[in-house]
């Protein structure tokens, strides 16, 4: 009989959906008598009580802190305190920009078992086993945690379907204690797209990645996009280099192309962060010289080949 601790995530007053996914994920390692304890931390954390009262959450701890949003020192201190209190066998934290900032300090200081960006959890006998990707997602890696009584894992978004049915956890309220913050949140800045197209609304995208090699090649693919009536988008390195505007970047730190039905991925390897913006698209066609590129694990159609050859052939057949 043990506890599984789930840390909810919210930002600017909105609960992030991954919180409910982790409650579902916790069920997959719940054993007879175990309890799933969900904690939500923030100055206005109590506003999330009803949203977090879902099936699978046995207890809900509302931790009132001095910071409305995430703060690495406060979160680390609160979660360390909860671990002492609840002695969980596992702590599930969303793998996100927030957890990048404190999960490692939390685990390192207490010597807990630790794995990040986990997309599967299971028991093999008495051993908790976590699966994550390796070598740019080309392999899967199963890890375990010999001798660890508490294991901290950060869990990838979309690894589990969210727990959505109403539940009735026992709710308790505590105050965050003893953690002084050494950083101060000032402001949020949203980079507007200016007059550029809103790529979240378009239904057909030609998207280029680092495979295009040089800036001068962007024009070729813009021509192709124009010719077939698609919107030209890109992976992050292309936007970082300034070859296309940031508003065209698909992915975790770019846009989720929610309306897209056909996505032609040219020279994109398929990193987790890129896929976060497009893996839902029903028809993905990927062209990549590397047969092992992870984009082929989510594409509907794949071509192992050179994007320049494909481009040239498409243009000549379309002419």
């Amino acid at each position: 009989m043990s506890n599984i601790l789930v840390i909810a995530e919210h930002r600017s007053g909105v609960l992030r959906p991954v919180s409910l996914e982790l409650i579902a994920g916790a069920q997959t390692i719940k054993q007879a008598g175990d309890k799933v304890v969900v904690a939500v931390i923030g100055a206005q954390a109590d506003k999330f009580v009803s949203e977090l009262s879902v099936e699978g959450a046995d207890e809900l701890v509302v931790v009132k802190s001095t910071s409305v949003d995430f703060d690495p020192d406060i979160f680390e201190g609160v979660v360390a305190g909860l671990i002492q209190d609840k002695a969980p066998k596992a702590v599930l934290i969303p793998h996100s920009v927030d957890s990048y900032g404190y999960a490692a300090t939390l685990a390192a200081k207490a010597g807990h078992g630790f794995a990040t960006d986990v997309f599967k959890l299971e028991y093999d006998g008495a051993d908790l086993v976590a699966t994550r990707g390796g070598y740019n997602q080309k392999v899967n890696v199963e890890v375990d945690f010999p001798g660890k009584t508490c294991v901290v894992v950060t869990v990838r978004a979309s690894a589990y379907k969210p727990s959505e049915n109403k539940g009735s956890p026992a709710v308790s309220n505590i105050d965050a204690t003893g953690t002084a913050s050494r950083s101060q949140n000032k402001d949020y800045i949203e980079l507007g797209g200016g007059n550029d197209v809103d790529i979240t609304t378009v239904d057909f995208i030609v998207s280029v990645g680092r495979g295009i090699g040089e800036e001068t090649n962007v024009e070729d693919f813009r021509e192709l996009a124009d010719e077939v009536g698609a919107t030209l988008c890109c992976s992050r390195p292309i936007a970082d280099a300034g070859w296309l505007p940031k508003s065209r970047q698909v992915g975790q730190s770019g846009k989720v192309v929610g309306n897209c039905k056909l996505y032609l991925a040219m020279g994109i390897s398929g990193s987790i962060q890129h896929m976060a913006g497009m893996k839902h698209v029903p028809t993905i066609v990927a062209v990549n010289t590397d047969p092992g590129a992870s984009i082929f694990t989510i594409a509907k159609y794949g071509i192992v080949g050179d994007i320049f050859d494909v481009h040239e052939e498409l243009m000549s057949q379309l002419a």
Partner: protein
Amino acid sequence: MKILVAVKQVAALDEDFEIRADEKDVDEDFLLYDLNEWDDFSLEEAMRIKEESPDTEIEVVVVSVGPDRVDESLRKCLAKGADRAIRVWDDAVEGSDAVAIGKMLAAVVKKEAPDMVFAGVQSSDHSHASTGIAMAAYLGLPHAAVVADLKYSPGSNKATIRRELEGGILQEVEIACPAVLTIQLGINKPRYASLRGIKQAAAKPIEAWGLGDIGMSASEVGEASAMSRVRRMYVPEKGRAQMIEGTIAQQAARIIEIIKEFKGA
């Protein structure tokens, strides 16, 4: 004034790689090594701060934990302008996890006493996104992850950073310094090494440190100290991609058909 930049030599897989017989890693023959992409940006950020304050003496020190082959990546950093390079290694370090590497880097930081510490957000091979922040744990320093913008006057006791959140939203944060910051892609435009830089780098020494130099023992590193252990590595199922075979003309024709199907629907 000193800025310390922690860097990693990452491994990418050759196209036809094989998993080792013990199924714990890829056979070393199929690994291609290079400096981690994120580290190009954190080194550049240190160089930017140095060059923007010509009146302040600023030393940029790159540090890596790894075997001999890592010298090549450190040499690349020296060629881009880093003043010193330190490589920490002992055979006992083999099998260490990100947290143990973070502990070793922290020990170097304690010895070097820099005013600012950078690491990459993550490494492109195993993407733990943990090493830099674990290092902060052993230093007790303020820390922030995924920094996409930095305003910092050399030696100041605070900096203004922008953390890049999901959806491309930035969060402006004021942080006490010295701090450990993990630097995000796109924060600057990394330079290429100049020919002159490459020549100069060849003459600069790379300091080789052992565990003794950082006051650590073999029992604190390696697989036995790790927070997790690899049980098995395997190639995942290829999923549902239907490969379009044939000549390039046939492949292109099929793409056009798919586009027409979509437009007809």
